[in-house]
């Protein structure tokens, strides 16, 4: 019994010493703050060979390593090899979507310091993903979002949104997003034409409702452009804004009371001399 106890104590002491030495070694600052060791990673083809048929897992491992590394490290120039790292991961497994996405996110964290080069990196990475996964809309949509939110570049955003809508699995939402992004550059007629198409492609009631809503707004805007001048004309002729459509039809300006896209009569705001549209849409 005594011998067993002594053996256990000896083992415990040795293990404790080993742990202590390990801890002491760990405290010696030897981490390369710039991630210079990343420079020495072989290229993707060699790493793939070394993985002995498990390149998917290798990509996973490097990806997890990268996000943990970049999440924790405080050094200023840690992003020096960010591009290289995520390029490597995506070279090894081009179909793995997360590295494109999260890589872009990490790169954006540097956006304030050097906006131009960061912008280039972000979209380069996302475009690489878009090319590698041609049947998927998600990365293109991410690119569109980032362009709009972070870089305030609606043109660029629209460019990516267009790519996204062209992908086979693009959800309806993406098409609507594109429509919104283009609203600044299209004419109203172009917008209306586009949104008719969006409505036609709606599959759920919700999608239909949202599309109809927006079409309504667009058509109202179009009608406004036609009808408001008419009201102004009347006001010029008769010295005051009309108060009902009968006045206009009586004056021969219109054949009948104009209806909004929902089939209701427009109202007239006599003070400002504008038409007023109802906002509610009947669910047809």
């Amino acid at each position, binding site marked *: 019994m005594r011998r067993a106890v002594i053996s256990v104590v000896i083992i415990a002491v040795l293990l404790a010493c080993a742990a202590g030495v390990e801890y002491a070694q760990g405290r010696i600052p030897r981490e390369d703050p710039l991630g210079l060791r990343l420079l020495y990673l072989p290229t993707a*083809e*060699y790493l*793939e*060979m*070394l993985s*002995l*048929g*498990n*390149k*998917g*897992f290798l*990509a*996973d491992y490097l*990806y*997890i390593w990268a*996000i*943990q590394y970049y999440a924790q490290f405080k050094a200023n120039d840690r992003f020096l090899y960010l591009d290289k790292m995520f390029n490597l991961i995506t070279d090894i*497994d081009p*179909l*793995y*979507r*997360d590295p494109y*996405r*999260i890589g872009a996110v990490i790169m954006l964290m540097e956006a304030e310091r050097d906006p131009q080069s960061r912008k280039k990196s972000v979209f380069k990475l996302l475009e690489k993903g878009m090319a590698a996964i041609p049947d998927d809309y998600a990365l293109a949509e991410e690119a569109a979002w980032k362009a709009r939110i972070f870089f305030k570049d609606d043109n660029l955003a629209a460019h990516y949104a267009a790519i996204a809508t062209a992908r086979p699995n693009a959800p309806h939402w993406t098409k609507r997003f594109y429509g919104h992004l283009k609203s600044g550059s299209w004419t109203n007629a172009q917008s209306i034409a586009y949104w008719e198409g969006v409505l036609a492609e709606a599959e759920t009631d919700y999608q239909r409702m949202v599309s109809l809503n927006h079409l309504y707004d667009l058509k109202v805007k179009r009608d406004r452009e036609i009808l408001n001048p008419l009201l102004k004309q009347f006001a010029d002729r008769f010295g005051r804004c009309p108060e009902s459509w009968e006045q206009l039809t009586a004056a021969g300006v219109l054949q009948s009371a104009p209806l909004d896209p929902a089939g209701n009569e427009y109202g007239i705001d006599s003070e400002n001399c504008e038409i007023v549209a109802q906002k509610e849409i009947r669910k047809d």
Partner: protein
Amino acid sequence: MRAVYTIARNTFREAIRDRILYLFLGFAVLLIVSSKLFSMLTVGDETKIIKDLGLGAIQFFSMLISVMMSVMLVSREVENRTAFNILAKPVRRHSFILGKYFGLLAIIVANLLLMTAALLVIIFLYQGEIDLTIFTGAGMTFLEMAVLCAFAVLFAMVTKPILGSVLTLAVFVVGHMTQGIWLLTERLQDAVTRFIVAVVYYVLPNLERFNFKSELVHSLPIPAAAVWWAILYALIFTALALFLAWLKFREKDLL
């Protein structure tokens, strides 16, 4: 035929009764289960990591079992002369080789089934559905191991146990690297080197032909032709290795 079955069954029994196997199996299952740890560290698709790690672990441990068990089941038998019992009886030498091989293969299959089941359970816990494509991955690993075991048997007949297992491991490593090396040398000008690489590439089994992990994990379609060719490829190399093993064994003096 009965002799082959008898020897195979005895080989299988010997492996089952050896506790090393349980150690491997335990590690494999542990690895598959601990894929959860990896999935916790990632941002994004967790199932991909579980599948990658799971399929990789299944392949790795099957390989270990091939390498280690072949030493135990085949080399040891020839070295320790327990083969005397069999070969002094009315049993042909080719029956011995086939029996040993199929016994070894049966062990691989049993382990594959267990590990695949473990992986399926883990995936089920994550995705809520049974992912049948994993069986394709297991099937391909089986083909790969069928080839590897045949080489293990060949090396057991030709050389000492430890060297035999090292050579089998080498076949595994080179078999996976050969395709990459072949592609890389396409750009080389040196005709001699290219010739040597070409010889190695075609003579040794290209184990990447059994690797459909990328398609399985990313849910891409696997062309049926690729599967059929892979099966044929495995059959050819298995036959080749076992034939060479028989050629050596049929004239070997058992001292």
